[in-house]
């Protein structure tokens, strides 16, 4: 590694790197493993020096830090002076600064100092009288405003994001990764290079997570409508400087947001994205529990015939269910064994599990689990006193996504479901979406699906082979009543889940007409 490359790393670690320097550093680190090792070694040196400097300061002030390690209460060790992170409001204010026509300062860089450029203008385009400079196709843009009276303009940002403006609109250009919409309508396409591209409005920031989306801000009311055409966005809702609420919005959904950043409505337009309509979801198994055959065989009524084995049938009674018969599981050590089909279930990168339950053990009721040879790799769908949950363990960490419920009424059947697809898990009860997420709520680990379970060999309804998260093997169970369990390969959408809730015993069939 030469000195110039080392300087790039140093500048980055000193937070002094330029955009061009960052591009070069990224290319270097992406292509060279030894450069990454050097990067980490230099970062370790930096942190080590900072650590020693602080220790030095403490010693010179007569403190002995080893005596300052109090019981955890929100602040640990010597780093209790953490500064509050300020929301970057200045950048938006800076949008108001005069627009600059950027010049090609560097012949080797087609962008020079420009942030964006006008790619195209419609024939009928016109600009408001207070537009500060003449706008024509191909001109480079720095920070500032475009004030479109009518017509359309396409702006290409240096980051690769493309924004189509439809007049009347007032649109601010801030940085290669950030724009501001005062009012009007824009359509944004952010490729991978512009992931995290932001369009801010008065009431929120819309953060791209690899997507196409539209924003329409009403000129008078400043109400906004955000529609996601493809991918996912995060809405950071609320006025700048206040604590913001983050709402994820997926393809096919549209959110109406008032001028204060409060969500008025979220609509699901499932027709937009076929991947989320459930069109790809196929029924994989359907255990009705209407009969138990010889040797405890629980028949799968789907074409796949993934028959299961009931363990400890003497502790299980057939009772009247939501549709035909149901299982009443009165004691521990009872489970429906799907281990024979673990490898089939472990092929699901996206899936849906739907079940009816009654009187679940509120301390913990395992509906479904799939795990490897150890507790270190598993996924589980389970119920607790106030939650419907999907959890996963991958190696050392366990994480989960939860949907809150107001308890479980005695002797009432509930429909529960979990779907996972396109990196998002959704949890439902009685057709209502309770919660969703792309990362767990404990440590922010990305979700795992059955296909991510290493060496999957154990699968059960009503049992988790080893539920420990520490020492000791812990089996976990389901007690209560269970009926009509369906598994689909593919994530069903809200409409399909509502159908399953409203039509107990029936299966969702993509393409069929459902009421």
């Amino acid at each position, binding site marked *: 590694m030469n000195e110039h490359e080392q300087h790039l790393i140093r500048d980055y*670690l000193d*937070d002094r790197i330029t*955009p061009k320097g*960052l591009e070069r*550093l*990224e290319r270097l*680190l*992406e292509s060279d493993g030894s450069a*990454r*090792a050097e*990067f*980490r*070694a*230099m*970062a*370790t*040196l930096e*942190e*080590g*020096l*900072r*650590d*020693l*400097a*602080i220790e*030095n*300061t403490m010693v010179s002030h007569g403190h002995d830090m080893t005596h300052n*390690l109090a*019981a*955890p209460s*929100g*602040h*640990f*060790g010597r*780093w209790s*002076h*953490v*500064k509050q992170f300020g929301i970057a409001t200045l950048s938006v204010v800076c949008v108001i600064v005069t627009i600059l026509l950027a010049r090609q300062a560097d012949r080797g860089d087609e962008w020079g100092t420009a942030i964006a450029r006008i790619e195209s203008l419609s024939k009928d385009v016109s600009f408001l009288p207070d537009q500060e400079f003449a706008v024509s196709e191909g001109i480079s843009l720095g920070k500032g405003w475009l004030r479109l009276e009518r017509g359309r303009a396409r702006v290409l940002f240096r980051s690769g994001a493309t924004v189509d403006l439809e007049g009347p609109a007032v649109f601010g250009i801030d*940085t290669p*990764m*950030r724009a501001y919409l005062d009012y009007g309508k824009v359509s944004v396409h952010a490729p991978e290079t512009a992931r*995290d591209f932001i369009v801010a409005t008065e009431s929120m920031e819309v*953060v791209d*997570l690899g997507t196409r989306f539209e924003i329409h801000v009403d000129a008078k009311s400043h109400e906004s409508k955000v529609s996601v055409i493809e991918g996912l966005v995060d809405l950071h809702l609320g006025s700048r400087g206040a604590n913001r609420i983050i709402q*994820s919005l997926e393809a096919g959904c549209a959110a109406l947001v008032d001028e204060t950043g409060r969500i008025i409505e979220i609509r699901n337009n499932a027709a937009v994205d076929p991947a989320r309509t459930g069109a790809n979801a196929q029924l994989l198994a359907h255990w009705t529990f209407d009969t138990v055959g010889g040797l405890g065989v629980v028949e799968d009524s789907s074409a796949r015939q993934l028959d299961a084995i009931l363990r400890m049938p003497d502790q299980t009674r057939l009772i009247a269910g939501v549709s035909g018969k149901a299982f009443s599981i009165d004691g521990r050590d009872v489970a429906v064994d799907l281990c024979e089909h673990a490898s089939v279930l472990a092929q699901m990168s996206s899936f849906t599990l739907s079940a009816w339950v009654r009187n679940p053990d509120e301390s913990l009721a395992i509906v479904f689990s799939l795990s490897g040879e150890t507790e270190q790799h598993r996924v589980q769908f389970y119920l607790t006193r106030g*939650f419907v*949950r999907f959890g996963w363990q991958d190696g050392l*960490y366990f994480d989960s996504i*939860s*949907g*809150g419920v107001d308890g479980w009424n005695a002797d009432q059947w509930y429909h529960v479901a979990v779907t996972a697809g396109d990196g998002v898990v959704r949890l439902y009860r009685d057709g209502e979406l*309770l*919660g969703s997420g792309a990362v767990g*709520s*404990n*440590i*922010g*680990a*990305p979700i795992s699906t059955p296909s991510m379970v290493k060496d999957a060999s154990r699968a059960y309804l009503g049992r988790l082979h080893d539920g420990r*998260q520490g020492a000791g093997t812990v089996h976990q169970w389901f007690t209560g009543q269970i009926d009509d369990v369906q598994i689909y390969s593919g994530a069903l959408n809200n409409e399909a889940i509502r159908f399953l809730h409203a039509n107990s015993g029936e299966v969702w069939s993509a393409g069929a007409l459902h009421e």
Partner: protein
Amino acid sequence: MSNELPVPKESIPPARHDLFVQALARHERVIRAYIRGAGVSRPEDVDEIAQEVSLIAWQKFDQLDRVEDFPRWACVIAKYRVLDFRRKRFRDRLVLNEKLFDLLLEEALDETKTQNARLNKLEHCLGQLPAASKKLLMAAYEPGASIDEFARSVGKSANALYQRLWRLRQILRKCVDDALSKDATLPNPSVSP
């Protein structure tokens, strides 16, 4: 999304608590080095993430089987905090792309022991610097220190000071690398000739 509500935690026995405090005190700098090495350039961000990691590690400490695994375990927690932090907080900053963050974090998980050794050697090497150089370095890395202000206070240009600090860091880096390779070539004491 409904976040999981905090569940009342069973009290951890005092001995376990002591173990946690000791483990954190011993490995905190490795965790911070791990975070910095992922591409988090600003020290205040490193502190904030390290703080979150400490809290999560405390909440989940009873899930850790062997306290010897603490540094790697805490770094796994840190990995996801860093990625989350990058996604939410680094949107409009000049930082490495997410793919690189992920790569650096993943590769560094296997280096926690090496980094700890590196940090130990650094302390030793710093002690070998002339007193004035050591004082300069310590002043530059003091919390809240500004190189520009510090340069003015000692009557030097910021650039000159950056250059001097760079040379000192290079000296330290070489000293640390030499010490690590010397350790690596030492015969294993458990093997009798």
